[in-house]
């Protein structure tokens, strides 16, 4: 993945002012920075949900602007809002996802529900789920169709220890398949066990790493300061 001078303006405010970075297949990058530094906007642009105001990029050989339709099929996301339908049951939510993918899934609905620990709630409406259960349901989507580009925005929110371990398993599996993972997080300590690089944002720009192999925990602490 290569991004060159990615900038995004919302009205009169620039959320990103020219972010440039590379991410190699098989790598897990933590995207860190203070609130308002452009982390979520960067993830949404890379996912093709948002078009950048300026800049360009290539993901798995596809142009970020011209080939968004091709990139989209390789993307899996876990945002703070889980993107599930409250009036559908857990099983129906996953069944809907399966049908939208044209039936091309690596794991069945039941297998995905079992792995995220929601088998007992398969027939329950998602509106009655706790925040952690809702996000587990979103994780089940990632298990059903493992993405090549995995984008996680504050993935540790609402999860218990088992949920966090599940997130890490999915991250490791994606990297092992030569996929790319970007994790936007403030929790440097938790993410340190899976990340192998840090993309630090400040005021909408990527701050260059001072030296290769920097400890992400230290970088995050510096960013917070």
């Amino acid at each position, binding site marked *: 993945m290569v991004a060159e001078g990615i900038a995004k303006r919302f009205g009169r405010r620039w959320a990103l002012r020219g972010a440039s970075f590379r991410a190699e297949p098989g790598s897990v990058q933590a995207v860190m920075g203070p609130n308002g530094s452009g982390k979520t906007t960067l993830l949404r642009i890379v996912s093709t949900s948002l078009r950048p105001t300026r800049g360009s990029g290539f993901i798995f050989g596809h142009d970020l602007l011209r080939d968004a339709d091709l990139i989209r099929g390789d993307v899996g996301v876990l945002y703070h809002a889980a993107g599930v339908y409250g*009036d559908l049951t857990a099983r*129906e939510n996953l069944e809907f996802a399966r049908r939208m993918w044209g039936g091309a899934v690596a794991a069945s609905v039941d297998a995905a529900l079992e792995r995220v620990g929601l088998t007992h709630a398969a027939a329950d409406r998602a509106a009655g789920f706790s925040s952690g259960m809702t996000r587990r349901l979103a994780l089940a989507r990632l298990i059903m169709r493992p993405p090549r580009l995995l984008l996680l925005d504050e993935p540790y929110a609402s999860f218990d220890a088992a949920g966090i371990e599940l997130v890490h398993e999915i991250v490791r599996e994606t990297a092992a398949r030569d996929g790319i993972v970007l994790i936007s997080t403030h929790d440097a300590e938790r993410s340190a066990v899976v990340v192998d690089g840090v993309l630090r944002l400040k005021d909408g720009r990527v701050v260059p790493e001072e030296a290769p192999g920097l400890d992400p925990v230290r970088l995050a602490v510096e960013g917070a300061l």
Partner: protein
Amino acid sequence: MSVRSEAGRVAAVAWKDLTAERRSKANFNAVLFLAALMLLMFGFALGPDTATLRTAAAGIVWLTVLFSGTLAFHRSYQVELERGALETLLLYPGGRSSIFLGKLLANLAFVLLVEAVLIPLATVLYDVPVGRVTWMLAVVVFLGTFGFVTLGTFYASMASRSRAREVLLPLLLFPMLVPVLVAAVEATAALLGGDLMAESGRWVRLLVAFDVIFLGAAIVAFGAVIEE
């Protein structure tokens, strides 16, 4: 993307919207109640004269469908915004037009269901005999509803990103609906009046033309409109 997989996505979106609506029923009950109330209020406003009520019936029914149906379009996109589902929906592979067509089908089924209760109620309240023209009337109702729902689904997607979407949707939608409304009311009135001048055929052809043009334009423009 194959036509078969796109058709599968259209069916999936329609199934998802209708299943969610069937579960909650909140929207259907609200729309039906509002529509029935409007029919009664128009009746009170026009007075007890049967001839006046019959003359105005076509316009009243279509206006009632238009005002009450607009609520359905709001709900159609509200469910996508509640838990960030729209972002996930837009990341599925395939054309954006399948999302539009799926929502169009679901909204069409919804409004036709409301009309299935509303129109018989109107024929009783306004004492309008429809026996001889029932099937032709059904064709007019379907064509008029299709044009209305096509534009409503499209403009609701445009308004859904706005904070003032409840106000914005009627402002965008109603002016664009004038041709469909005029054609649907004229065709319905001609049929209810016995169609002595054989006018309904012209209006029906016009409705078909509007439906085709609006559907084509909405499919082309939807991708740009739904993206932030």
